[in-house]
């Protein structure tokens, strides 16, 4: 192994990248605008949930309920009649439709416990659950305070003081911004290394390297360090300028520790890029393989839905994916301010996965040399 070769070949990779202006634009886009747009687009968990109300009572109580729904949690409710309810929900215009029956106020005061019907579009899973909870507590609150004026209602003075730690307002953009960077890191590092190798093969330049006193190991390591450096730099800038600056997300933990974790993640994903490039014979095949790998990595790593809700088999499978560990350590460091003492298992896992992928890629690389030249 010759460190000078690794260095020189890596510089070559950086120069090649600098020659592709469209690629540079895309990289900048992925780490700035894309992060910003995705983070700000994400609503607070329940934001402007579309609701419609069928008020068949038109009593003071029902009007009080009607006016209890307002932004940001809900859209101003659409006051509709029964016939419209189905068609609006079919067309996807409402997630919730609340039906207040006739004589609701009278029955409440008479203690007859009338029934309000809440229709929920259950295909919108994320809103369906939290939203129904909110609606239930809003309606209960309104009815209770209305009824207290007319009826004695016994209550136990036990209060539940709920506080969210690490993100007190449960601000989605805190979450979205960082997860977006994680996705971009994964995507970019795989594309850059993998496609760079295939390009060398399609243009015949790999052949030239292989007749020189350069080993496959050196070629691989040079690609890994160069591309990892690029990605690490842009993600650091993105984290500091876009996430901390523009999105004003307070970061609790140590940014250098996170970047150290990101470096390990990059080791694993760049090695994965090389591995994919040795499996694919042409750029179109690589593009398809990339989609096949990228989507599960992004969707099943815990960056978009909680891991513990996934089937156990998937949870075990995803233990082998670097993203899973990276997402865990990123959340722990950035939001919960965890130190190395807490996240070392993730560092270890990333190092092991990276080494495994690297060795596999190296074996493939050696055995496919004949077909590359």
């Amino acid at each position: 192994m010759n460190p000078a070769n690794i260095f020189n070949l890596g510089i070559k990779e950086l120069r090649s990248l600098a020659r592709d202006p469209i690629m540079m634009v895309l990289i900048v886009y992925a780490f700035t605008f894309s992060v910003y747009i995705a983070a700000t687009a994400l609503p607070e968990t329940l934001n402007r949930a579309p609701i419609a109300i069928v008020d068949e009572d038109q009593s003071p109580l029902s009007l009080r309920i009607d006016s209890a729904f307002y932004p940001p949690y809900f859209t101003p409710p659409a006051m509709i009649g029964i016939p419209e309810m189905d068609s609006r929900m079919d067309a996807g215009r409402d997630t919730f439709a609340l039906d207040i029956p006739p004589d609701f106020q009278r029955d409440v005061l008479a203690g007859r416990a009338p029934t309000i019907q809440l229709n929920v579009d259950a295909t919108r899973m994320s809103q369906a659950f939290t939203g129904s909870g909110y609606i239930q507590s809003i309606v209960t609150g309104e009815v209770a305070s209305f009824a207290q004026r007319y009826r004695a209602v016994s209550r136990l003075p036990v209060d539940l003081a709920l506080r969210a730690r690490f993100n007190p307002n449960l601000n989605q953009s805190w979450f979205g911004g960082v997860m977006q960077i994680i996705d971009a890191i994964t995507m970019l590092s795989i594309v850059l290394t993998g496609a760079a190798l295939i390009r060398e093969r399609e243009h015949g330049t790999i052949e030239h390297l292989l007749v020189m006193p350069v080993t496959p190991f050196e070629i691989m390591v040079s690609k890994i360090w160069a591309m990892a450096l690029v990605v690490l730099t842009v993600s650091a800038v993105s984290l500091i300028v876009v996430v901390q600056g523009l999105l004003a997300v307070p970061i609790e933990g140590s940014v250098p520790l996170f970047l150290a974790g990101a470096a390990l993640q990059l080791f694993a994903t760049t090695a994965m890029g090389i591995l994919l490039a040795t499996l694919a014979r042409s750029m179109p095949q690589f593009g398809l393989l990339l989609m096949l790998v990228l989507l599960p990595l992004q969707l099943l790593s815990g960056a978009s839905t909680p891991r513990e809700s996934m089937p156990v088999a998937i949870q075990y499978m995803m233990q082998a994916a670097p993203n899973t560990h990276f997402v865990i350590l990123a959340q722990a460091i950035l939001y919960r301010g965890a130190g190395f003492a807490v996240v070392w298992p993730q560092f270890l896992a990333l190092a092991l996965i990276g080494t495994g992928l690297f060795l596999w890629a190296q074996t493939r690389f050696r055995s496919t040399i004949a077909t590359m030249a």
Partner: protein
Amino acid sequence: MSGSAPVARLSGVGLRYGATHALAEVSVEIPAGRMAGLIGPDGVGKSSLLALIAGARSVQEGRVEVLGGDIADPAHRARVCPRIAYMPQGLGRNLYPTLSVFENIDFFARLFGQAEAERRTRIGELLAATGLAPFAERAAGHLSGGMKQKLGLCCALIHDPDLLILDEPTTGVDPLSRRQFWELIGRIRAGRPGLSVMVATAYMEEAARFDWLLAMDAGRVLATGGPAELQRQTGANSLEAVFIALLPEEKRRAHKPVHIPPRPPGEAETAIEAKGLTRRFGDFVAVDHVDFRIERGEIFGFIGSNGCGKTTTMKMLTGLLPATEGQARLFGHEVDANDLQTRRRVGYMSQSFSLYSELTVRQNLVLHAKLFQLPAADIAGRVEEMARRFELTGLMDALPGTLPLGQRQRLSLAVAMIHGPDMLILDEPTSGVDPVARDSFWQSLADLSRQDRVTIFISTHFMNEAARCDRVALMHAGRVLVIGSAAELMAARGAATLEDAFIGYLEDATKETGTAESAALAPIADPPAPTPRSPGWFNPRRMFSYSRREALELRRDPIRLTLALLGSVILMLVMGFGVSLDVQNLTFAVLDHDQTTMSSDYALNIAGSPYFIDRSPLRDYADLDRRMRDGELALAIELPPHFARDVERGDPVSVGAWIDGAMPMRAETVKAYMEAIHAQWLARKEAQMPGGTPPAGLFNLEIRYRYNPDVVSIVAMVPAMLPLLLLLIPAMLTALSVVREKELGSIINFYVTPVTRLEFLLGKQLPYIILAMVNFLLLFLLAVLLFGVPMKGGFLTLAFGALLYVTCATAIGLLISIFMNSQIAAIFGTAILSIIPAIQFSGMIDPVSSLQGMGRLIGEVYPTTHFLDISRGTFSKALYFHDLYGSFWPLAATIPVLLGVCVFFLNKQER
């Protein structure tokens, strides 16, 4: 017709690439009905001139008239385009390697709108005339160089052009094939006297046979006229001498005839030795028991037809390819791919240009010097020396991609020699290099061999170069036919020139093996009545020609096809089972300061819920903090001291609950669950209290989960997966299909044939739409049969929506491809421009109406949003077309918008 109006008239034509002038003030008339040749050193603008005349490149400056009109005028260009045929530089660059010979020609015939019967006759005749008929079913990628050029010619001649433009058609082609190629052109011209031919060539002996010549240098015209006339003007006795005489003073002075002193006799030290060297690729024997021995300091030539195994032999010597059988030794050591020490003593130059086109000339040289570990102090000097020797001094900061073939070859050589190797293995190093540069190159080879005793193993198609070698080996079909000095070979055949001897040996060998490549050449018959040439803005036949070709290529690449079809199925399986929006199995722990029955009852109440899992109790605040920080707990509950007492007494009590807010969506759910559990516990307690009211509330809230009454995640997720998967893969496929043509060069066919932008785009799109629809059916079956998602609405409604949607998806791919020039950028661009909007802004997780900012805007117009409504509507909501027309029309309207933008931005010429 001949001799009258010129076929092309250029006046004041200039062309620049960035800062470099490729052409300056070129004014010339090219006679019609003649064989016009362009000669000149590399990089003087020959190719640019031809590309301008062919209409492949747009005119920047001056006026180019072709076939009686201004080629810059789109209407005229569309009119004359079917009368021009253009064969670009490079072996088979505009051919499709996975398509067979017949399919390649058929593709071009369809592009020119020919009907079935006409195509068959024409292709049959061309194949017979070129001797390609026996190979009609062979893939173009497996043809030899000479055959590729013949095929290229067939493709160019399919539409009976009036002007045939050939850019270095015989560069890199062996002498026998070259001779056949020119015979073929001769017969074609005999059959069609009106045909004008323009040829750029590096072979002076070929140029000597042309009717009219145009000599160029540095983007300017030096002289025009017939070969004899030029010889008279310059007083030179050969065209090669004319060429040198025409050069400007300073270039001419640099030229000296090659002088190779005889090899000094001495001890015969072996540098390269091959014994029974064999290489097989499957059943095909590329190199068949080859033996030779090359002495140190010898110049050893390797000649033979294209594809005879020369390159494979050289690759085995460098260790790039392992030998199947036999031995190769360098300096007495067996070739070993891991022997870095030997690699340092060898310089290798491969046949195709294989340096980094993204690095400048200087950067390439320095990189290689460093990789060969030259001492850092020597590198700058060595690089300068190489630059001087190969006349690269003025080009040090240029990118190799912008240089013409000849200069790139010189750079490759400089790179191969940068480390002063003991042995050079050069695979056709002088292909496409002009005579002056070739001579100076040979002089340096001679010096290396004779002074520094460098061993040189070189393959070439130039017979005068072969004659300069100490010995040559003639190779054919994987075997070495004969080895000897040029004089010995000529004597053995009784031939006057080495070329005749070479062709003699080859003809004997082909007779033995029975491949009648040159036999049975049918005469060129009168062409059938040509189809009326209506350019028109839309011709389905031209469009289907692209579709057919794309489909054929897809079929020839089973891995890509399988990935495209199975990839989405695999993704659907993984994500359908994996992505779940149900939040459960949440971990919690209790910090109980009270430790009474009531406090543990409160904790048990939470643990009893199906959503929460109990963890060991918290010891203190530090424990709580630590366990929340490492993410072990989603929820921590603190019960205060005297909890039970205060509750009994009715004193105000507060239960503390901390939620991990790192993942807001999960936190919200935890919050909602916890509030419900707390309320439930309170109600139960109230009921148990003396005089407490029954838990019946003031009212009941009845929640009806519509469309998905059991609230199953799969039922919600699978219909949402469909739009995602039907976007990503089709968009990726179409984006790459166009960019790939750009990167590999076959896009030129779109530039120079009458196919219109819309035909090109739709033609490319169609096969991928069909593929995506097959994909849709597979995914649909998977959803219904495996995931058991009930299909409540109209299948046809969904299928029609899918058709519109995949048309949009493939059009998005086309749109991306138009702005990208490299496949890497296309892959990355497609990934970021499709995955993020589809997953985040299209309502897959959060409905679009709840989004805000840019994301909301993107979501409103992105096609995935509308198809998601259709998919969920038909699957879960039992809807039909009339319920969903509000989602159909935006999809239908997106298609013409996307295609319109594509047509607008797509260039029909290189700029």
